[in-house]
């Protein structure tokens, strides 16, 4: 008995020492959120014209294909500007069909005669605004996914200004701002395209351009800039990715990024690689060919991107590929540090009030339960220490919603102790000696406490899995708190009872 108690005591002391070590110093180990500590304030502009340009190019290509399929003659489709196309020498005898196609598939576009058999095909201004707005919304979603992947808790991401193309991002903390900025800004437009010619040091050395190919720069092994001539249409794009992760290439022992495709992309990729065995495929990232491997055999749903990456670069590239491409490039316009969004004044008064409340609770427990109350106080304080230690260990971000979870934990911790003590008193009233009353009391409330905490834990797990931002912050502290609650109330408090009573042969009264 005594040996077991001593062993438990040593284990507890080790736990406390470990926690203190993890937490110390709190200023450096605890990650506080934007609301409690402040962070970095970034304003960026989305180049929404990028998205309009992509749409214009895609439309030119698809419209030409559509006319070809209907066997309607035209000379060429020229891009005049953003959302402005000219169809040269259109077969006007079949204008009706063309108009029907436009009405059916391109309702946001206007077809007008430009004279001499040429027709202008323009994106309506109202439609262009919609495209630009969607671009900003998509960019915000992508940024949110990337910031989430970075493990940053509860950022502020919203629109800014009245020009409709600015995004405001606030991130908590000041660590690694440069990396966060780079990850947010990376366009991460991945495309796999068939190589038609190259690489050549000079664009002039490549065959003349036509509407189905373009030249893309690449860095040659010598370090010079060269060019590949590749198909304009990509076989696979970032949208076909299912997952991406950093890995090491066994042959060259250099970092690379492995990716996998989802079902539809995989079947297209198999057809594409199967039809082009022996040819080169350029891996194009943000309009730069990072490598151009030869297709050895048909490839299914796996692939890898090799390039001149460091491990960190490969990790970040995998992250942005997982989070998806930005629909347009970004430009930072403003970067400032900001103070806590709750305001330094509120935090001061909040901390004071919380400490006063906690002190009041602990004093009352000692006053009401006398010496036994000390058990509860030790259990509650240890509970808080475990919570803070776990937050520091997992580098989880503490925010006000997280503190709400802490408050619930403390409430339930108080409840667990009150339940135990009231039950012990109840048992003593029936005439049981203290030692028996303690043992019966603890075993009676065991399932009450487990059920109460498990119910909340189940809910917290779901909130963590499916919630976002503040919901997750709440779930994290609550889950940690509930587990340590059961531990401190059932194990630690019991241990102290056993320890205090172990020295005495007969216990007549209990200070409770």
């Amino acid at each position, binding site marked *: 008995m005594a040996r077991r108690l001593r062993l438990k005591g040593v284990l507890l002391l080790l736990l406390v020492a470990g926690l203190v070590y993890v937490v110390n110093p709190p200023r450096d180990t605890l990650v506080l959120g934007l609301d409690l500590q402040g962070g970095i304030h970034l304003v960026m502009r989305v180049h929404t014209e990028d998205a309009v340009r992509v749409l214009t190019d895609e439309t030119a290509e698809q419209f030409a294909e559509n006319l070809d399929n209907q066997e309607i003659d035209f000379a060429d489709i020229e891009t005049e500007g953003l959302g402005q196309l000219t169809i040269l020498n259109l077969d006007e005898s079949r204008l009706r069909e063309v108009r029907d196609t436009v009405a059916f598939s391109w309702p946001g576009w206007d077809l007008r005669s430009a004279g001499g058999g040429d027709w202008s095909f323009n994106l309506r201004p109202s439609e262009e605004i919609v495209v630009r707005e969607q671009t900003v919304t998509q960019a915000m979603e992508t940024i949110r996914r990337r910031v989430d992947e970075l493990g940053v808790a509860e950022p502020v991401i919203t629109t*800014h200004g009245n020009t409709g193309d600015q995004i405001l991002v606030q991130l908590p903390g000041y660590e690694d701002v440069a990396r966060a900025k780079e990850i947010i800004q990376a366009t991460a437009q991945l495309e796999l395209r068939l190589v038609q010619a190259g690489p050549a040091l000079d664009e002039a050395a490549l065959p003349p351009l036509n509407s189905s190919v373009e030249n893309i720069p690449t860095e040659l092994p010598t370090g010079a800039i060269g060019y590949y001539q590749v198909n304009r249409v990509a076989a696979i794009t970032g949208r076909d990715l299912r997952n991406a992760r950093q890995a090491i290439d066994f042959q060259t022992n250099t970092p690379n990024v492995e990716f996998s495709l989802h079902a539809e992309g995989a079947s297209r990729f198999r057809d594409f690689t199967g039809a082009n065995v022996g040819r080169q495929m350029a891996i194009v990232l943000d309009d730069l060919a990072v490598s151009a491997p030869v297709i050895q055999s048909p490839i299914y749903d796996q692939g890898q991107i090799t390039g001149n990456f460091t491990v960190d670069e490969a990790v970040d590239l995998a992250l942005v590929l997982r989070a998806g491409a930005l629909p347009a490039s970004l430009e930072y316009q403003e970067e400032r540090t900001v103070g806590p969004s709750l305001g330094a*004044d509120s935090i001061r008064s909040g901390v004071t009030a919380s400490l006063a*409340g906690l002190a009041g609770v602990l004093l009352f427990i000692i006053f009401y339960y006398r010496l036994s109350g000390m058990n509860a106080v030790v259990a509650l304080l240890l509970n808080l220490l475990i919570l803070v230690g776990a937050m520091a260990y997992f580098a989880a971000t503490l925010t006000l*919603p997280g503190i709400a979870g802490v408050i619930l934990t403390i409430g*339930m911790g*108080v409840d667990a102790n*009150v339940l135990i003590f009231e039950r012990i008193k109840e048992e003593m009233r029936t005439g049981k000696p203290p030692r028996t009353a303690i043992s019966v009391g603890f075993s009676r409330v065991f399932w009450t406490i487990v*059920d109460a905490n498990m119910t909340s834990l189940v809910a917290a797990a779901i909130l963590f899995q499916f919630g976002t931002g*503040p919901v997750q912050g*709440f779930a994290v502290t609550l889950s940690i708190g509930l587990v340590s609650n059961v531990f401190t109330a059932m194990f630690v408090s019991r241990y102290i009872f056993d320890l205090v009573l172990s020295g005495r042969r007969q216990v007549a009264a209990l200070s409770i």
Partner: protein
Amino acid sequence: MDILGDTRIDWIKYRWWFAGISLALLVAGVFDVIRKDGLRYGIDFSEGTMVVAKFAEAPEIDEVRAVVNDLGYGSAVIQSYDRPEMNQVMIRVEKAAEDETGGAAGQQSTEAGIDETANRILAALRGGAAGELVSSSTEIVGPVVGEELRRRARNATLMALFAMLIYIGFRFEPVYGVGATVAVIHDVLVTLALVSLFNYEISLNVIAAFMTLVGYSVNDTIVIFDRVRENRHIHRRLDLGAIVNLSINQTLRRTVLTSGLTLLAVGALLTWGGEVLRAFSFVLVAGVFVGTYSSIAIASPIVLWWRSVRGGTAATAEQQRPQAPPVRV
């Protein structure tokens, strides 16, 4: 020391009174929400105005907040901006209501609203309470919580509630899961009514406080249910109504102590926590009251009622039990 003697209150007898009280609060809340054109959502959920003000000397955030609060912007976010020696403060407030902008339509109304809001704030700041104003800039900012985030939060909460129902139903009996869940929904609605009646705004932090309330309420309910479960094995002769009464009375000391202590903690936050945390701590305080009340007044009667509908013993339970059984076992 004991805070309460043994009680023999016949809680179940008052169940219609309880239902009446809850219903009255809910109706009052609904009317209040209708009268005020819906619940008030804070800056987290709506478009707002952002003013960056530069002062001649380092401004005190709480003085700036006092000035902004006097204008009626309860949920303003006020942060220091840029390096400390720049003496700048960033103030975010929600967009002025439509009627304040004179009802002009479309984009112009927004911009007029932004300008007017910014001008009001800057005029008040020039009043000097927070120091001499040097320069300022104004921008529109969007809501922090968009539609997608709102949808995900809602789904996660509903799924979590459902999981609780399943767990309690599994560990006790299905009807107990229903009782606890209905009680939790009752608590959220009643507290929402109180939030509206007391004119508080809903922010992300207030929603976190609501989740705390749910957790607290469920915990409290489970303690009573657990005692019912235990007593049903001990007193096989007693009908369920008597057992529920007995269990509530047996756990009453614990209920009063736990709720009192939790109230002490969150009450301190409400009293001394300052303006920004007021709505948050109000929901916590209300949650302790409502969550405790609903375990006795809503969750237990529902279990009983369900049993009576299924087993046909409701009337007999009432008649057979003129007084509550003794507490001592």
